[in-house]
């Protein structure tokens, strides 16, 4: 149940709150100056919002002034700064709020610690009073007070007989239900405050949801005045919210108890802006670090990272906030960045006061990069050659060598096949078209076709599933809505499923967006080809998508974009061009994030296919830059891989220090990852010199070559191979399990392969001593020599026999069962 909300406008609350904060921050500054001789100087001052537009007599805009220190720490100095309006006759500033006096343009100026900042003020219609608007004032009250949330009247069947659309996706329907569904019951236009709507909401009569609106509050006043005006609806004519902003857009708060006020500003389609801090729902995702009150005031708590979000209308925006203890000793690392990745990662780590781990050893690097790029382990020869190489750029050369191997593209062909759900489906996708599709995809990636071109070819494909294998994309998923959802999730990293039934709760997507996007797939024609196994996919030129609430035919509309002209065109090609275009805001970042996650173990946005405001990037600058680089490289992701693997960030040790032990999302140390099923099996076969036979493939093919998602083995299934039933990135499972442990200990895979491959026997017969054999299998499996301690212990177990086959096999077994082998580190 939501919190009851009472009006606490900027006027009432800001003065005492800021006073309190002023005292606090003075104390804080005093304490820190006495504790440390060098308090970093204030280096910049910013006044928010950057532009203030006031468009009626009652309009106002709260402001926030933020000072930033050289070490990145920010402080809310709204109360301490000296603020004034340049042209005092046009607007007045008091209690951290600007109000209009007369039409004209001027500016608000803030001064603090010798720094200055200003914001433009535009006043228009200063003498006009705006009547209460259903869309601008009343609907926001329902959202702010929680009336239309899913647990209250926003539930599918409403609550206690009264339904509102969830988060207001259907304002006209809500107006009907309030005013006419049960005539005279819910509203009383003669005595507005006796309306059931008002009495229930304000707790004057029994209400399951309790008192949600305080009598006399701004919210109460909106409802009451709207009813007094006759409860008119301006749905459809009122300006729509085109943008929402939260200020400050980021903050680094030092010391428990420090405060920072957040304000939300909406921009409307008519160009006006409005302070919606007390109409939006402002929330924190981390109560322990940044608790927030109804007025938008955050009080720093324990050390941590959090996200403050504001939701208003259909928009959600967020601000990343770091909280640091006040007595932290920290010296930023002076390591030279290898490339832009290190610079961006270090920016964040320095703000967090985290010291990254040092670079890993050559042995660790070799094993990690070989597993990541080609999905195998370095051979004994490669190991010795790499360690013996004295060239300073040997790591970069190794990366280039590995990127040139065909296995690099094979891994990515497999990864894309997972996302595209390449598999046979009974009565729909036969083996032949599926195999042609998988081969086509593998060839595209092997030929280094830019990834946006591949996607363009898939989405815009027309023809037979034999002759144009990309058309299988539409055969694997025949449902229109599901296709739209899959395209959004796979290629844009967006999950729009929720918006099928209601405006997305955690994201910006509305039902309009959902059905507008679905309309791109409304005209797909399918017919059986000459061979019954082939389907011809074509543009039928007919068919529309309807909005289930309004019944309106939806014009195809890009997600978060325009409504393109599709007349006479294949809608899918229009969409494909949009997705593949460098201007597309989602595609490049989403692909780059997937690439990053493969090499780093966790996406900057994680899960990689759930990019939304409320699931923010752990490092937004890095996220955007990787996307921009992919575009710059003409969508050749191999170059991006080169950047990633050459960065210090990729090459860090997995060993942690005191400051980064808890960090899992900021790349201050390498993450330990269980090797994915296919690569693990391929590695075991490589080490034991054995061959596997998979259905439809020749003996000796690797598990990453398996084309059909339906083909698996006990080993692959147990170790979490993607079933390719959904496009979800969660299909690949690298979580350990008891079955995995049992299988490695007793199962045929390791046991059988050691026996079958005869690696031990061959080595002994070649005249190697048991110690030499032990060293060799350790290098083979772990890319390192045994430590003296290990060698002593293992040789003691192996004993004195001249050809201890069984004993050495047991050691081989132990190494293949070791955690060090199962994990990439």
């Amino acid at each position, binding site marked *: 149940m939501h919190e009851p909300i009472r009006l606490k406008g900027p006027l009432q609350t800001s003065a005492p709150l800021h006073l309190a904060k002023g005292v606090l921050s003075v104390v804080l500054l005093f304490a820190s100056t006495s504790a440390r001789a060098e308090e970093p100087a204030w280096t910049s001052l910013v006044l928010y919002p950057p532009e203030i537009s006031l468009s009626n007599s009652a309009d106002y805009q709260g402001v926030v002034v933020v000072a930033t220190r050289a070490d990145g720490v920010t402080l809310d100095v709204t109360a301490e700064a000296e603020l004034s309006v340049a042209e005092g006759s046009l607007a007045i500033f008091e209690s951290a709020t600007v109000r209009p006096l007369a039409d004209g343009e001027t500016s608000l100026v803030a001064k603090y610690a010798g720094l200055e900042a200003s914001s433009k003020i535009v006043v228009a219609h200063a003498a006009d009073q705006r009547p209460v608007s259903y869309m601008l004032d009343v609907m926001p009250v329902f959202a702010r007070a929680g009336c239309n949330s899913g647990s209250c009247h926003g539930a599918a069947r409403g609550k206690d007989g009264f339904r509102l659309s969830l988060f207001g996706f259907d304002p006209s329907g809500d107006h009907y239900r309030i005013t006419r569904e049960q005539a005279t019951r819910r509203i009383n236009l003669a005595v507005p405050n006796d309306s059931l709507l008002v009495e229930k909401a304000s707790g004057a009569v029994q209400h399951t949801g309790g008192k949600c609106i305080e009598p006399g509050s701004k919210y109460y006043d909106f409802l009451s005045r709207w009813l007094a005006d006759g409860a008119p609806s301006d749905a459809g004519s009122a300006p729509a919210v085109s943008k929402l902003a939260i200020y400050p857009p980021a903050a680094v708060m030092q010391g428990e108890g420090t405060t920072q006020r957040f304000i939300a500003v909406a921009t409307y389609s008519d160009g006006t802006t409005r302070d919606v801090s007390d109409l939006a729902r402002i929330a924190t995702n981390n109560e*322990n670090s940044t608790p927030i009150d109804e007025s938008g005031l955050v009080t720093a708590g324990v*050390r941590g990272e959090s996200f403050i979000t504001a939701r208003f209308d259909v928009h959600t925006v967020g601000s990343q906030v770091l909280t640091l203890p006040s007595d932290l000793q920290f010296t930023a690392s002076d390591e030279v960045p290898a490339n832009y990745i290190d610079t961006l990662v270090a920016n964040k780590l320095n703000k967090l006061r985290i010291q990254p781990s040092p670079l890993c050893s050559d042995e660790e690097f070799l094993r990690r990069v070989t597993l990541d790029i080609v999905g195998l382990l370095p051979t004994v020869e490669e190991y010795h050659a790499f360690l013996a190489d004295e060239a300073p750029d040997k790591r970069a050369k190794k990366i280039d060598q590995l990127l040139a191997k065909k296995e690099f593209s094979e891994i990515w062909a497999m990864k894309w096949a997972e996302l595209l759900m390449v598999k046979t489906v009974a009565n729909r996708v036969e083996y032949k078209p599926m195999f042609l599709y998988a081969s086509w995809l593998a060839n595209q990636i092997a030929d280094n076709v830019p990834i946006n071109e591949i996607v363009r070819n898939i989405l815009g494909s027309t023809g037979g599933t034999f002759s144009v294998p990309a058309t299988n994309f539409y055969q694997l998923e025949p449902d229109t809505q599901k296709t739209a959802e899959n395209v959004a999730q796979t290629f844009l990293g967006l999950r729009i499923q929720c918006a099928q039934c209601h405006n997305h709760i955690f994201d910006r997507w509305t039902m309009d967006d959902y059905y507008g996007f679905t309309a791109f797939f409304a005209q797909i024609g399918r017919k059986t080809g000459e061979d019954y196994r082939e389907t011809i996919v074509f543009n039928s030129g007919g068919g529309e998508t309807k909005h289930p609430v309004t019944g309106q035919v939806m014009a195809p509309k890009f997600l978060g974009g325009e409504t393109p002209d599709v007349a006479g065109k294949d809608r899918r090609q229009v969409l494909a061009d949009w997705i593949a275009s460098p201007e597309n805001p989602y595609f490049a970042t989403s692909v780059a994030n997937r690439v990053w996650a493969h090499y780093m173990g966790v996406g900057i946005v994680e899960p990689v296919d759930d990019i939304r405001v409320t699931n923010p990037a*752990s490092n937004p600058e890095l996220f955007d830059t990787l996307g921009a680089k992919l575009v710059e490289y003409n969508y050749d992701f191999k170059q991006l891989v080169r950047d990633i693997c050459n960065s210090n960030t990729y090459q860090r040790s997995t*060993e942690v220090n005191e400051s980064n032990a808890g960090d*899992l999302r900021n790349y201050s140390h390498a993450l330990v990852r269980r090797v994915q099923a296919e690569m693990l099996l391929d590695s075991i076969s490589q080490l034991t010199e054995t061959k596997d036979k998979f259905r439809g493939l020749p003996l000796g093919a690797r598990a990453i070559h398996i084309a059909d998602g339906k083909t698996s083995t006990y080993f692959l299934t147990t170790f979490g191979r993607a079933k390719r039933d959904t496009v979800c990135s969660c299909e690949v499972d690298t*979580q350990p399990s008891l079955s995995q442990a049992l*299988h490695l200990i007793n199962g045929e895979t390791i046991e059988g392969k050691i026996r079958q491959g005869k690696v031990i026997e061959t080595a002994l017969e070649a005249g190697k001593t048991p110690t030499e054999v032990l060293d060799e299998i350790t290098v083979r499996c772990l890319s390192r020599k045994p430590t003296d301690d290990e060698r002593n212990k293992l040789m003691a177990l192996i004993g004195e026999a001249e050809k201890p086959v069984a004993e050495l096999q047991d050691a081989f077994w132990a190494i293949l069962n070791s*955690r060090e082998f199962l994990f990439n580190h």
Partner: protein
Amino acid sequence: MACYRVHPIHRTLTSGLSRRDFLTVGAVAGLGLSLSDFFAIRSAQAEQKHYDFVEPTAQSVIQIFLPGGMSAQESFDPKPYAPIEYRGELGSINTNVDGIVFSETLPQTAQVADKLTVIRSMTHGEAAHERGTHNMFTGYRPSPAIVFPSMGSIVSHEYGPRKNLPPYVCIPNQPNEYAGTGYLSSSFAPFSLGADPAAGGFTVRDLARGADIDDTRFARRRSALEAVNDYFSQKVKADAVGAMDTFYERAFSLIESKEAREAFNIDAEDAKLRDEYGRNEAGQRMLMARRLVEAGVRFVTLTYGGWDHHANVTQAMRGQMPAFDQAFARLVRDLDERGLLDTTMVIVSTEFGRTPKVNNQAGRDHWPKVFSAVLAGGGVKRGIAYGATDATANEPDINPIGPEDLATTIYRCLGIIADKELMAPGDRPIEIVKGGAVRQDLLA
């Protein structure tokens, strides 16, 4: 009655940050645990609601889940006096308890009704399979923000293994994603048999050592493994590695305990008893479940059939129900004969019920407003029907009970106070069940 021990993890939870804690904390990283979460967890641990275990009445649970949404009208809650379009084509029969009537599809179960608690007033609002299933496995409504752990994983988390056996086993496989660990570490995942006990030549894979691996070699392998693991575990402290460590420990104790391994050997059961359970999926899965709890497994989940009867519900029930009826009745009697029924709770549940009125395809559609569940043993009453539906099985008339209360009551029998909070990602302490009440009327 053996006393429950508190799992070691919980001894350390209250006393600073141990490596175990670190593992538990880190293990949710897959769900997006960030630095903030880590610090927050450290600070929030003190604020978690904590309860000690209470004296359990149930030592083990056998959860029989009938996926698809089994019709209550055609099973445990017939409506013989309703018009035919509500009643359906099937008749009803008396049970061995006065006043309790079952559908004619359950003749053998009717003869063990005196050992059952039939709940006829289950209710929740989720008409989609996956959402209803989520409710019944976790006691929570699905949330877009968090994945909740299943009852089996909670029991695994709270109590850990017993007699070298995995605490939570699924027959034959984990039936759906909600039967998993949710926000808890993957160390608490169920062990899946991986094969159906009804299948010919059934064995659980990889429990026994290879033929030529004698004690000497096995011991040498373990020593060698320890020697190799040493180096890495000193350098690397990561959650997934810790979970793998746990599974290796459990695997070795399972492999080295003949009794534990024998629990999975259904061939050791008397052939006659196997016939009496029924040589089919229902029969052999339930028999396997009994074997497992008898040997020490705490929580067994099995599924049987598919009950989504939008069409031809009568024929479908006649086809699937006899095997269930035979197996379930035999299971209850078997447990009782062995003196295990008092300490073993059997739960029969499904994700929701079916529409009061038969549709134009002679089937029934989804109806989460009311449906039936059955409990037996482990501290619940014998021979009662709890709650009731109205004349057409449209609404719960008496004692409506939701998944929260059902789960809370089951946890209570297991000695777990469901208001206890566990740590979820996003630094949220989350109750095992939120807002559930123990239904004392169900308890013996």
